[in-house]
């Protein structure tokens, strides 16, 4: 779909984040280079979502800096937004929102491509259509309100709203969480296609649906526990390093 001149890249230098004195991320230093899918794994509270928000400039770290494509975006979502598209973690559609699927995805691109007052600009319609079809949102759902969607369908719409921006770096917070198994396979293929010329950073509890398309795994538990080739990292991780409760309870 797009070709990017520069290699999409994210760099975090000694990033430390805490909320009300509680540590969320501790001395994170990372360099994530595209193209490709990078999976961030970890248990609840490991700081996966926080890491994505720090990269997107939504959270300003207590210490450290964040660079995207060489530009300092620390705590600056408006600057980060020039390179990054972000999909928040969401299992349920907003129950009250009368916004239609089409308008939501269309606005995702208009906020980047047009100035206020934002009327539809040329070429947007085709891009919106292509992205909605790509993630498997049926044509009959395009003019439904967001509140009328199932959790899985809303997740597809969120992914479409990220795709439509054409950003070289995509931050997706648990994008497959509410999607059915068949949908996971289809969406995994879509993400792997996109990752041929983009950096796609995905958080997950379960690495397997995207494993064959993943270039790098970051195991996180407030600190970087391990980083590297997916199979190598997963086989090297000591049992229970990421999910001690799960391991002790179920013996896996």
């Amino acid at each position, binding site marked *: 779909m797009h070709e990017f001149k520069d290699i999409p890249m994210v760099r975090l230098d000694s990033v430390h984040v805490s909320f009300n004195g509680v540590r969320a991320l501790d001395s994170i230093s990372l360099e994530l280079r595209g193209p490709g899918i990078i999976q961030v794994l970890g248990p609840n509270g490991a700081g996966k979502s926080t890491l994505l*928000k720090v990269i*997107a*400039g*939504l959270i300003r770290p207590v210490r450290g800096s964040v660079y995207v494509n060489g530009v300092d975006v620390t705590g600056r*979502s*408006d600057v*980060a*937004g*020039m390179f*990054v*598209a*972000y*999909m*928040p973690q*969401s299992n349920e559609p*907003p129950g*009250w*929102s*009368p*916004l*239609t699927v089409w*308008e*939501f995805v269309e*606005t*995702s691109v*208009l*906020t*980047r491509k047009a100035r*206020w*007052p*934002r009327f539809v600009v040329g070429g947007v319609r085709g891009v919106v259509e292509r992205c909605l079809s790509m993630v498997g949102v049926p044509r009959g759902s395009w*003019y*439904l*309100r*967001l509140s009328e969607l199932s959790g899985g369908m809303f997740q597809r719409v969120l992914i479409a*709203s990220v795709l439509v*921006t054409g950003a070289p770096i995509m931050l997706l917070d648990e994008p497959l969480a509410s999607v059915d198994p068949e949908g996971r396979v289809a969406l995994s293929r879509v993400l792997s296609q996109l990752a041929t010329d983009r950096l796609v950073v995905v958080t997950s509890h379960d690495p397997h649906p995207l494993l064959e398309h993943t270039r790098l795994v970051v195991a996180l538990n407030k600190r970087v526990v391990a980083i590297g080739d997916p199979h190598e990292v997963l086989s090297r991780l000591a049992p229970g390093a990421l999910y001690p409760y799960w391991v002790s309870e179920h013996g896996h």
Partner: protein
Amino acid sequence: MDTRLYLALLIVSLVTLLITPKLYWVVSYPTVMAVIGSSLAFGSISALIAARRLYFLAHVTPHMALLAAPLSAIVLGHKGGDWILAVLLVLVLVWTSGYALYKGVSSDVIASIMVSFTASATVLALYYAQRIVGAGRVSQLILGDPLLVTSFEGLTALIVGLLVAVFSLSIAREVFFVGVSRETALVSGLKVWIYDFTLYTLMALSVAIMLRITGFLVTSVLTLLPGAIAVIVARGSLQVTLASITIASIASALGLLASISLNMPPSGVTGLILVTIYALARVARFG
């Protein structure tokens, strides 16, 4: 329903309002201008309030306006221009609430503090204001009566209503988008604080200027219900905003006509009509 149907209904309700002075001698054109202005302002702002789930603001702003009006009268006496001071006071209070929300204070806490402060101070302000502007004017602030507005007030309400409606329609898409995910909106480069600031300002202007027309008691209803109904019956930012304005206009037109026929305060009848439409819309949609 189709957007064209809402437009048609809006035109019918506005035409009904415009011919009312020909049907009833008690209704003057300033009254019609005031009613149309308040419908446009409250209808459009109500849709944005519903989209952002800022219902607490619809509760507290009338309290702020009710404090500002007598306070301005006390400060300026009979010199005139008290409504300008009232608008400025409401703007400061609304912006303060918005800033507190931006800083992470919960809407419940803001509403509790603001309502406690304004309600207490209003009792004192009304007590002294009665001696300056008279009990009739104070009663108008609380109950509201479009039949008593002056030509200047009617024209001001119409201009403000038109401006609020045009601005609301032009920012509806972004406000509804922010309502779904503030974080996504921020990363997509939207200056969310500008839209919030505009929304708070439009809210303050609408309530402060329309208070004398609709009265304190019904202002909350008018800022809450048209949008809440529109969210149930319409889809998409433009259609919901248009539907909200249409619903406010229909309720105002019916309220005015019914109040004249039944010799009752128009704002009370308008409020009850809105509550009825809301109940019907909920039953029709959710059973």
